[in-house]
Each structure stands twice: as structure tokens, then as C-alpha cells.
């Protein structure tokens, strides 16, 4: 086995036993990248010199992840390194500070391989909305890696990084993790600082890990969790050691299976795989029972009013004044400069969502759309509260389908939105959820199992995920490239 194929915890052990050197590991990942990146196209910016420098310095750190190469989504501010959000409007933006998560990864000496591709401003489910180029799924290069953190998920799956950071507003960590056969976790809203994450929808956005297995996920979550005075919405709560939750026995764990999620256009093979996953969880000691989240069918419209409304406000800052692109084609007049810059700088999906959000917030429509959606959000949240009085966790597919073909859904925004129908309710409720590999379809494409938990109870998610993982081998398979 090559070093780039191993997990972070395996590699960390080898480094601590001095069987390998962190510099060898970074070279292995960079060589792998050299061999496959022209086909996968996971990255927008590569930082091999920085990675080598950080690998060299990794012996100074006590972190269990010191020296483990990491991929960072391109909507994380990285001081002195281009940060584009895959948008033409930020094509030349070089941040003057680091996101808090980036600072923590630097202090722990995780070598930075580069900044990964994404849907523009994290709006999309396939990474095809990137303003620069699409990314391919390492399991089938003609298919999408999911999105919006498709670059990070593809990089981790292809061995072009050992660990990765994504952001998740409606499924953008979990759905690409599912499509690429890796593990992705969206923490509870407030668990991880959003300082320096370029804002899309501030009441929904959350940073999280994308990794090869559940143990790596717990280790990376340990690194990034906790209160940050620079993000007033980060929760001032104690952070447990998440690796303590990794117990192969699920004795006494109660798991609810909401019936609604299996009806949402879910493919037969995905349903079968979830059925088989329930049996595995039961064999580990869990008690699984059908339940209901009656308002979850309203989650998609609710989300597509709230997220665009928040985005229309957050993206007002891109006006060609303080940073980024300014159109040379505008009249010498400030309003024309704003409008022309924004027309030329934003891609079609971003414009669609800005328009939808502006409409939902505009006079005469605010009550019928935005306020209505906020009330429906309460009902969805209450459904979860009630379910969690009975169950420790809930499960469903991460996405109704496996990875679709590049170009298959680009002309139909609604079809694209439906890809996140199982992940969106989680963001609306603010709860944590993880996607883990739970099977492959006949085409050889990975299927993901989503496990959802109570607020700030990532430990139970990780326990259930680990209990499943220890009894299956889906997480050990690697794509052939």
C-alpha cells in the first residue's frame, strides 16, 4: 500500500513510531496529485511549497494530526493564499487573515496541499457551478463528485489529500462525501467557528471534516471544535474528546428511521442499502424503529427561501469596491459600476439565488415567503425535538441517488435542488449529521448513510457511525484511477 492510501490515524501512528517521516508522506500525496489531478481537477490552487515547509515543521507539534496533509475548500480565508469561492467576482482575492479553523490547522502543523474546487459561493450540489471548471468523481470520471464541497471530497477519495475541510449549508459536506465514498460530518450549528468562512447563509453555514473513516473524522472534529471570540455565534460549551465515543458496541442505542425520507424520489438500490444498514446497526446492538417527521416534506421550499434570502444580503458586499472584480465595461457612474460588475462577476446559479432571495424579502412578499419559511422552520425543528425524545439518533439516505452524470441536471435547477432533500432539514434544525459509506450500486458508485443526532451530541453520531463501520468494509475501498 502507498502512504496516500492510508488513513490519518494509521499515518499518525507510523509517524509517532518513526517508521515514516512526515516529509515522505507529503511527497507521497504530492506525487499522487501529480499523477491524477489532471483527470480529477479537485483543486483550484495548489500550495506544494507550503505543504513541504509545514511537513518539515510538523515535529514541533504534539497534535495527533501533525504532518497529515489536508485539503481546504476555497471559501475558507487563507492569509496570503488566493481564496476565490470558485467565483469570477473573487478571482484575485488574497485574504489578509486566516479563518479560525485554518489557524488551528496551521498550529497543529497539518501541511496544506491546496484550495479545493466548489460550486460558486457553495451554491450547488455537483461542483458544476464552479466559475472555473468542473471536478470529476474519482469513482467515475464522467460523473459529478457532488457539491458544493466536491473538490475536497474528490481530493480525499482520490488520495490527493488525507483529510479535508468542507462547509455545509444544506448538505454541502455530506452529499459529496456520499457521492465520493468518504465520511463527511456537519457539526451542530455553533460547534465550530465560522470566522473567516466566506458567508453564504449565516444561520445555516457550518464547517466540518471530510475524511476516509470515522476515526479520522473524530480526530479532525477534535481539532476544530470549540468557542471562538471572533464568532459570536460559536457556542461557549465544553468540547468532549470525540475519539472517546468510538465504541464498537451499540448496545442500548435507539435509532429512528423516518419514513418520509425513503419516499423522496429515492432510488431502489439506495433504499435496499439503507435496509441492509439497519440490519448491521441492529446486529451491533442498536434498536431501530420506524418514525415520522411530518413537516420534512416542506423542508426544501423552506430552505430555498431562507438560504437565498440570507445569501442576497451576504452577497451584497461584492460591489467592485473593496476587493475582487470590477467591470471595465461600466459607465463612469457608481450604480452602473455595481450592476455591471455583479452581472459579469456572478454565475447563473448565484444570480438565480440572489434574485429569489431578494424577491422573498421584498415589500409585499416578505410575509408570504420569508416569514412563512421562518415559521415552517420552527415546525421542522419541533419534529426533530419530538423524535429525539424517543431516539438517540435518526437515519436515512444521505442523497436519494448516487452520483449523476456531468451535465445531467445543469439545465434544471429544481432537479438539482432535490439532490439535497435529505440533508437540508438538518441545517434548518441546526443539528449535527454524518454521512458514511454504506454500499455501492450496480454501477460501482458509493451510497451514503446519513445519521442525525441531537444538538451538540456529535459523540453519539460518531459512536453509531463507528459501530457500523467496524462491521462493514465499504470505507476500505478506494477508487481505481
Amino acid at each position, binding site marked *: 500500500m502507498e502512504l496516500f492510501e492510508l488513513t490519518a490515524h494509521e499515518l499518525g501512528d507510523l509517524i509517532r513510531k518513526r517508521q515514516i517521516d512526515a516529509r515522505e508522506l507529503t511527497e507521497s500525496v504530492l506525487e499522487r496529485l501529480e499523477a491524477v489531478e489532471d483527470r480529477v481537477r479537485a483543486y483550484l490552487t495548489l500550495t506544494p511549497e507550503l505543504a513541504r515547509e509545514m511537513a518539515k515543521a510538523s515535529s514541533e507539534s504534539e497534535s495527533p494530526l501533525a504532518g497529515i496533509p489536508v485539503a481546504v475548500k476555497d471559501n475558507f480565508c487563507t492569509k496570503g493564499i488566493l481564496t476565490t469561492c470558485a467565483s469570477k467576482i473573487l478571482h484575485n482575492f488574497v485574504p489578509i487573515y486566516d479563518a479560525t479553523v485554518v489557524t488551528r490547522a496551521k498550529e497543529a502543523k497539518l501541511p496544506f496541499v491546496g484550495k479545493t474546487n466548489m460550486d460558486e459561493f457553495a451554491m450547488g450540489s455537483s461542483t458544476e457551478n464552479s466559475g472555473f471548471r468542473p471536478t470529476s468523481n474519482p469513482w467515475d470520471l464522467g460523473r459529478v463528485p457532488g457539491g458544493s464541497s466536491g473538490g475536497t471530497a474528490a481530493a480525499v477519495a482520490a488520495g490527493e489529500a488525507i483529510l479535508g475541510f468542507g462547509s455545509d449549508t444544506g448538505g454541502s459536506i455530506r452529499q459529496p462525501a456520499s457521492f465520493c465514498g468518504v465520511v463527511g460530518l456537519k457539526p451542530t450549528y455553533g460547534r465550530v467557528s465560522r470566522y473567516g468562512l466566506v458567508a453564504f447563509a449565516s444561520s445555516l453555514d457550518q464547517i466540518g471534516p471530510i475524511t476516509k473513516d470515522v476515526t479520522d473524522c473524530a480526530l479532525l472534529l477534535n481539532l476544530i471544535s470549540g468557542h471562538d471570540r471572533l464568532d459570536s455565534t460559536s457556542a461557549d460549551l465544553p468540547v468532549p474528546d470525540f475519539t472517546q465515543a468510538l465504541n464498537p458496541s451499540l448496545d442500548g442505542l435507539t435509532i429512528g428511521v423516518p419514513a418520509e425520507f425513503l419516499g423522496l424520489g429515492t432510488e431502489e438500490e439506495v433504499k435496499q442499502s439503507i435496509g441492509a444498514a439497519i440490519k448491521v446497526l441492529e446486529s451491533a446492538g442498536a434498536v431501530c424503529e420506524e418514525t415520522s417527521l411530518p413537516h420534512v416534506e416542506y423542508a426544501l421550499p423552506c430552505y430555498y427561501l431562507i438560504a437565498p434570502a440570507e445569501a442576497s444580503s451576504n452577497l451584497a458586499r461584492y460591489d467592485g469596491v473593496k476587493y475582487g472584480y470590477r467591470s471595465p465595461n461600466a459607465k463612469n457612474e457608481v450604480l452602473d459600476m455595481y450592476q455591471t460588475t455583479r452581472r459579469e462577476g456572478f454565475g447563473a446559479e448565484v444570480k438565480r439565488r440572489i434574485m429569489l432571495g431578494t424577491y422573498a424579502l421584498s415589500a409585499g412578499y416578505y410575509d408570504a415567503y420569508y416569514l412563512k419559511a421562518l*415559521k415552517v422552520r420552527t415546525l421542522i425543528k419541533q419534529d426533530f425535538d419530538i423524535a429525539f425524545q424517543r431516539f438517540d439518533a435518526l437515519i436515512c439516505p444521505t442523497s436519494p441517488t448516487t452520483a449523476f452524470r456531468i451535465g445531467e441536471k445543469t439545465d434544471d435547477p*429544481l432537479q438539482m435542488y432535490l439532490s439535497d432533500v435529505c440533508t437540508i432539514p438538518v441545517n434548518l434544525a441546526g443539528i449535527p449529521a454524518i454521512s458514511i459509506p454504506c454500499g455501492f450500486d450496480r454501477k460501482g458508485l458509493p451510497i451514503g448513510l446519513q445519521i442525525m443526532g441531537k444538538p451538540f451530541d456529535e459523540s453519539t453520531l460518531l459512536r453509531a457511525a463507528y459501530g457500523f463501520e467496524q462491521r462493514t468494509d465499504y470505507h476500505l475501498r478506494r477508487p481505481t484511477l
Partner: protein
Amino acid sequence: MALTPEDVRTIGWLARLKLTEEERRNLARQLGQILEHFEHLQQLDTESAVPTSHPLPLTNVFREDVALPSVPQEEVLANAPEHDDRNFIVPRIVE
């Protein structure tokens, strides 16, 4: 909910997006379809539901009123498309 290209022009103005005629036509159709798909939200009884604008029960978050270091002006200006030593430069604002 049908939207006309004229509605789209108004929303575009509010969003400071200058749209071509083709974009206006496409957006009128696509936004109309999306809103139509969302119509069933209106049937749901939300009379007794309090709006949730944020997932955490946070109110005001205070800190000590102590000055902390801020970013030097030249760094703040470095990413601007046009600037001088102290200012962002923009096109004409008033007649």
C-alpha cells in the same frame, strides 16, 4: 406564481444586478417554476408557530470594551480594484 420580465427587472434593480433581456426572460420562467413548486408551503397552517431566524437560542453576546489590534490600512486597501494611500476609489456618485 407567474413573474413577468418586468418584475424581474425590478427585482434585479433591488439586487443591483443589470440583466440582459435574455436573462430576464429565463429568470422569469425559472423563478416562476420554483415559486410554483413552493406553493404548497402556503397551505400549511403556521398560525401558532413562532418564526425561527436562528438555530441557537442566543440573544446578545457581549465582551469587555477593550481595544484589540486591527488590520493596517495598507493591507485593507491591498485587494481594492482602485485605491490611493488612504481611500477606496469609486466612480462618480453625485452629479
